[in-house]
Structure formats: structure tokens, C-alpha cells
């Protein structure tokens, strides 16, 4: 038989957390701090709207770009939050999670050989999706001393003649880093000058703890060269509903909607009705969850300080990214030993790029009670490692 597979897919590496996932799943009594989704249930009034949509028999396709009503609510929401005005008929599309939007955007924007600048550590899908779209990933290794923000110098160094797209993902998974307005302004100047485009994955925008999130698309001259991606998963605790959206210039969106139409048809109808309710009446829920995450974030940072584990203060998402270089173990070795000895799972920083070496991603999408238990074990583990070294 011939090889049924494409060379491209063979070249794509499997996700770095797969191995850990398998071990943790086997361990019945393990505590996991490895989850990348909220611990809250979707607020009841949102679920109720989903149930209501089913009861009413709203079980058919919606238009390819998404329910008109939902796109209109997205328009209002972005105008309210970011001060950017998108035309809901031409510049907004509803997708199956932010993930689909990333994939579709890359596939619509890249020609073979086009370079995509991807600052790492970052979410796991950007590199594979770039490769599947015949793009060439160009990695920037972000630095702890810059609090994992992208600096203009780093960006300039990475740009070549072939650079087409920069992927920006702030607040960031896995580091929790944010980019503030001044940081973005410095980057935007270069982007405009070098005539490149931005895919801005802002899925964690609502989980910003140092003032409101600023989108790069809100800066002068940037709306026309940015695909802004967001969704309902993190802000409204709706991961399983699989609903996101992309906003951007009509010229690009038109093609993205075309591809989406052929590949997906439309995002799940039930989820779209629920999402309308989320945007109309979910503001308080978001604030409640943000406050809870923020409390946990403060707790963790304080605990690391007491342990003497260096960790920059993350301004967003629900992750902390402490440095474990002092122990002379790789991230994977540390995580594996920690899991075996203390039965707590964390994700090695290397799952999000080579420059994640020496770091761990710890999620605080857990109750304070769970965090206390797990962090107590981390403190003991760290202490034992230090004692062993002496």
C-alpha cells in the first residue's frame, strides 16, 4: 500500500503534553494543575438559553458567518471593551472556538514560504497550523527578564523579506504575560513600517489583572492589518461549547468565511444562542470569575515568594510560570519527578516552545483549597530537592 499520509502532517510534532496527559490520567489520586480551562461551570443563565434554544427547535444551520444577532452583540461588546468598530455583516465571523479562527486565518493569508513570526512560549497550535498552511514559522524566544513581553528589538531581528504575519497572543498562555498599550505601540510602528499583518489571539482578554486589556487592533493604522481573535471559552467558562470569533478587514474575512463555509459550515447553533445571552447579560459573571482568579494569582505569587521560587508577576490569563533553573533539572524531569513523588501534575514549560526550558506552567483554574494542597506539596518537594543538593 502507498503511504496514505502527507509529508506535512508527519513533520508536525505531537503536542508536548501528550506524554504527561497519559501518565496523569492513569494516576487516580493525582492532583492536576495542568488544566487550561476554567474550573467554573458556564453561568446558569447562559446554559439556560442553550437549553431553551434546543427546546424551541433551533437545531438548524445558521448563516456561515454566524447568527446575525450574535455578530451584532459581538460588535457592541468589542466597541464597549476595545473602542473598535467592526461591521457585523462584513468584518465579524463566528468560529468553532478561537482555534478554528487561528487555523482559517493562517490558511487564508499564507503563500508557500511566507514566514510567520511566532513569539514563544505560546499556545501549542500556532506552529502546526502555520506549517499546515505552507508557512514557515520563525520563532522568537521571549525572555523572563522582559516579563515575556515582545520587544521591538526582538521583532526587528526576526523580520525578513518573507515575513507576512506576526502572531501575538496576550494575555499569554502559558506565561500569563500581558502587553500594555506602550508595548503594543512600539510593536505597531514596526508592523506598519514593514507592512506585515497581525493575528492577535486575545482569548484571555477578559482575564487581565492590571487594568483593562488593550487590543493591538485599537491602535491607529492597525485595524486594517489585524485579525483579532477572541471567544467565549475563557471569559465565560464555555470551553465545551466551542465558540469563538474573528474580526478583521473585509478583504481577509471574506476569504476566511469562504473557507469556514467549506470546512465547517457554521459554528454550533445551540452555542451561538447561548453566546448571545453571555454577551448581553454575562458581564457580572466575568467580573466575579476574574476576581476569583486574581485572588488565586495573589495567593500563588505569595506562596512562590515564600518558597523562594522566582516567578515574574503575570498580569493575565490563569497561569503562573515559575523558574526552576536552580535545581539543575530540565522542566520535564522536574515535572515528572514532582508527579511521581508528590502526585501533582504541572506542565513543563517546554511544551510551549524550547525557550520554556527551566519553567513550569501552573494553572490556577482550581479552587483555593485545591491550590493550597498542591502548593503545600510543591513547597515540600522544592525543600527536599534543595536539601538533597547540599
Amino acid at each position, binding site marked *: 500500500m502507498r503511504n496514505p499520509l502527507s509529508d506535512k502532517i508527519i513533520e508536525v510534532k505531537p503536542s508536548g503534553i501528550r506524554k504527561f496527559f497519559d501518565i496523569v490520567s492513569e494516576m487516580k489520586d493525582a492532583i492536576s494543575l*495542568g488544566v487550561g480551562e476554567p474550573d467554573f461551570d458556564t453561568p446558569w443563565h447562559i446554559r439556560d438559553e442553550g437549553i431553551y434554544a434546543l427546546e424551541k427547535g433551533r437545531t438548524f444551520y445558521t448563516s456561515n458567518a454566524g447568527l446575525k444577532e450574535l455578530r451584532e452583540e459581538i460588535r457592541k461588546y468589542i466597541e464597549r471593551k476595545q473602542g473598535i468598530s467592526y461591521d457585523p455583516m462584513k468584518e465579524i465571523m463566528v468560529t468553532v472556538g478561537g482555534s478554528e479562527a487561528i487555523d482559517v486565518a493562517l490558511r487564508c493569508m499564507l503563500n508557500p514560504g511566507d514566514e510567520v513570526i511566532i513569539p514563544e512560549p505560546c499556545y501549542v497550535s500556532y506552529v502546526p497550523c502555520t506549517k499546515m498552511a505552507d508557512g514557515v514559522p520563525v520563532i522568537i524566544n521571549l525572555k523572563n527578564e522582559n516579563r515575556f513581553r515582545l520587544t521591538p528589538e526582538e521583532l526587528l531581528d526576526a523580520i525578513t523579506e518573507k515575513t507576512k504575519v506576526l502572531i501575538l497572543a496576550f494575555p499569554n498562555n502559558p506565561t500569563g504575560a500581558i502587553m500594555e498599550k506602550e508595548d503594543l505601540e512600539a510593536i505597531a510602528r514596526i508592523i506598519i513600517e514593514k507592512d506585515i499583518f497581525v493575528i492577535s489571539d486575545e482569548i484571555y482578554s477578559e482575564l487581565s489583572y492590571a487594568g483593562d486589556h488593550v487590543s493591538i487592533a485599537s491602535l491607529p493604522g492597525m485595524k486594517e492589518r489585524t485579525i483579532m481573535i477572541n471567544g467565549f471559552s475563557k471569559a465565560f467558562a464555555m470551553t465545551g461549547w466551542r465558540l469563538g470569533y474573528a474580526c478583521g478587514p473585509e478583504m481577509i474575512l471574506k476569504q476566511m468565511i469562504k473557507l469556514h463555509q467549506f470546512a465547517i459550515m457554521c459554528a454550533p447553533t445551540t452555542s451561538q444562542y447561548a453566546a448571545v445571552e453571555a454577551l448581553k447579560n454575562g458581564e457580572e459573571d466575568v467580573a466575579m470569575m476574574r476576581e476569583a482568579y486574581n485572588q488565586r494569582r495573589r495567593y500563588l505569587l505569595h506562596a512562590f515568594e515564600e518558597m523562594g521560587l522566582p516567578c515574574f508577576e503575570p498580569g493575565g490569563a490563569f497561569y503562573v510560570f515559575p523558574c526552576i533553573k536552580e535545581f539543575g533539572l530540565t522542566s520535564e524531569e522536574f515535572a515528572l519527578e514532582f508527579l511521581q513523588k508528590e502526585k501533582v501534575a504541572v506542565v513543563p514549560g517546554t511544551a510551549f516552545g524550547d525557550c520554556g526550558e527551566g519553567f513550569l506552567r501552573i494553572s490556577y483554574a482550581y479552587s483555593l483549597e485545591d491550590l493550597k494542597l498542591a502548593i503545600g506539596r510543591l513547597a515540600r518537594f522544592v525543600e527536599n530537592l534543595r536539601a538533597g543538593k547540599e
Partner: protein
Amino acid sequence: MREKILTIIEKNSKVDLKELAIILGEEEIDVANEIRAMEEEGIICGYHTLIDWEKTSIEKVSALIEVRVTPQRGQGFDSIAERIYKYPEVNSVYLLSGGYDLLVTLEGKTLKEVASFVSDKLSTLDTVLSTATHFILKKYKDHGTIMAKKYEDTRLKMTP
């Protein structure tokens, strides 16, 4: 800061002061002072424990009693409410809008005990016009806490 403290201790009055200060990003002494002030001002009225008595072997009967009364000149409902809330077996007394005036909740050891409180003490008060007693059969949710189910984390243990 007050609202945040109250939101947390309403759910968990056992929270450690030091921890409370950490998660709120405040100084411990400030949090302690704020709590003391709120106790003195009567904003914080007590630190109770939510108990699901059904899971114990201790027998308890709870009832809600709707009470219609004649308000008294110059005192409205306050003095009749006071006469009722002074009974130690009474848990709570609310003045309501709608079809009746006072909602009284109380706990007794047996049905008979509750019944005799209503017939002997409550109904015989001068200003009480009528009562309607409802016995609680099951508590599904109390003080924002669902009694029936325990939280179960059904998420995948590791996701990117």
C-alpha cells in the same frame, strides 16, 4: 475592600486572616481592622456553620410559618415581630410584602413540638390573625450551597 471581604467570608467564615490579606492584596492589619469595624457596626452579625442535619442521626423538624397580624398604632409590625423573635426556637422572622405579613422559620425536635409552639404560643398572641405552617421536607440548597451534590472535577486532567 469591605465588599470583597464580605463576599469571601459570607461563603467561608473560617478563612484565615493572613490568607485573606494575601488573596486580597492588602495588609493583614488593615483587613483585621476592617473586619473588627464591621463587627462593631453590626454589619457582620455572626459566624455560623451550615449543617446538613439530614446526614446526622439527630432528628430535627424545620417549618416556615406565614403569619398575618394586625399592625399596632405607632409601632407598625416591630413590636409584634419582637414578641415572636424572642422565642429561642424561632430561627428567623421576616416582614414581607404580599399576601401575609411575617414569615417565621423555626426548628423543633419533633412535629408535635413545632405544632404546639404554633397553637400555644404564636396563635394566641393578640395581634395574630392567622397562621399557615409549612414543614420543610428536604433542603436542596441553603445559603447558596447545594446540599445534595459534591463538586466533581470532570475536566480532562491536562489540556494545553
